[in-house]
């Protein structure tokens, strides 16, 4: 058996956060120094309803191992109704990914308010843990995109 240290799996995780609640929640997690792994990279969108399923599939195609979308809690959307549409879209998309055999834990939606820094941090920790346990995304990645 090789004595070489096995390189730790460092997943690539994309988090779409709405500007008004979740991005602010992530800021709060930061200013409260509530850590989560550096594997998570946040993309700011105005609202969870801006997240096109195409963005999520594209992330996977380019080699992301997990994609999480965060938005305001239902009922609290800055644009009143955006997250309700996002909820339906993501439910259907996730169900479809599950249907074609993608491990269910690779996608997640979490509602995080601007006050929920703790929730943001715990959610990200959990999610990274989950992705680590699932391992590398091989079912959705386009191998030609691998560098």
């Amino acid at each position, binding site marked *: 058996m090789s004595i070489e240290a096995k390189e730790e799996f460092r997943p690539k995780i994309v988090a779409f956060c709405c500007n008004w609640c979740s991005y602010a929640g992530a800021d709060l997690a930061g200013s409260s120094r509530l850590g989560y792994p550096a594997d998570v990279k946040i993309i700011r969108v105005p609202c969870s309803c801006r997240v096109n399923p195409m963005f999520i599939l594209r992330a996977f195609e380019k080699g992301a191992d997990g994609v999480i979308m965060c938005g305001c809690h239902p009922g609290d959307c800055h644009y009143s109704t955006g997250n309700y549409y996002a909820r*339906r879209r993501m439910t259907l998309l996730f169900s479809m990914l599950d249907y074609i*055999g993608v491990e269910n834990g690779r996608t997640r939606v979490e509602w995080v308010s601007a006050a929920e820094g703790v929730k943001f941090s715990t959610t990200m920790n959990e999610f990274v843990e989950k992705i680590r346990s699932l391992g590398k995304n091989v079912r959705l990645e386009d191998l030609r995109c691998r560098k």
Partner: protein
Amino acid sequence: MQEVINRAKELLADGTVARVLGWKAGDLPYNPEPAYFESVESLEDFVYNGFCGANLSKYMIEASKLEGKTMVCLKPCDTYSFNQLIKEHRVDRDKAYIVGVGCKGKLDIEKIRKQGVKGIESIKGAEITDEADNLTIQTLYGEKTCSYADAMLERCHVCKGKEHKIYDEIIGESKDTKDADRFTEVARIEAMSPEEKFAFFQKELSKCIRCNACRNVCPACSCRKCVFDSNKFDSAQKANVDSFEEKMFHIIRAFHVAGRCTDCGECSRVCPQGIPLHLFNRKFIKDINEFYGDFQAGEDTEARGPLTDFTFDDVEPGIVGERG
């Protein structure tokens, strides 16, 4: 068929319509193709038989732009697509004279071939007026018979009903040919392990040659320019490879028509590779029905589609994992 032709002649002659949208015989006995007829004489080529599966609703998008009315022949299930197109302002109701044509289930030549029938010369029993329960097929190797029901398209086994949802007049009788549950196959896949599901779709989708037939025939895929042909998402189509790309294409295609797809089954009918593409659309339909209540696109021209609607207590996306 003659009744439809006669009526078409009348409508053309009295100027009610400027053209007739129907089917004409193809080069083989089982591949009639959609066609316009602009004169009484040209109607000699008009056919309407069991192989006229093509849904003519989508042709009305272009026909709506033409001068004068178009008489369009729609089968009961085609009228759902037509309604959906009205809802999306893609066709002009006033430009269409809808003749609801009778339908007793449409035939799938592949189903006949799968029964070992080769070298087909002619087929009897496919005429719409025929009461025969069997098809009599003249082949190079002699006469074969096969039951009409066994030769039907998959979609006819899950027929939505014999009722035309929109029409100006109805010619001919229709029959409800439903004898199966349309979600059986979806449920069978859902019950598989992730590995099995992945293997199943990997196998099916790797057959895809990105010919776009599914997209071009689909009455819901009526975009002037498809996202897969535009630079808006850097998603313009690429060559066929055994990778994620086909899945991306088919998931997004199904997603774009989710809540709008009437389950007409044209995508699967025209796929040259025989990929059961309707399984994507049906999955969305099944989920929509389960999560948000039964919805049939094209039932009417008013109802809000499930993806442009919501309730305050919709299920959370986490349901997908919880359901197991």
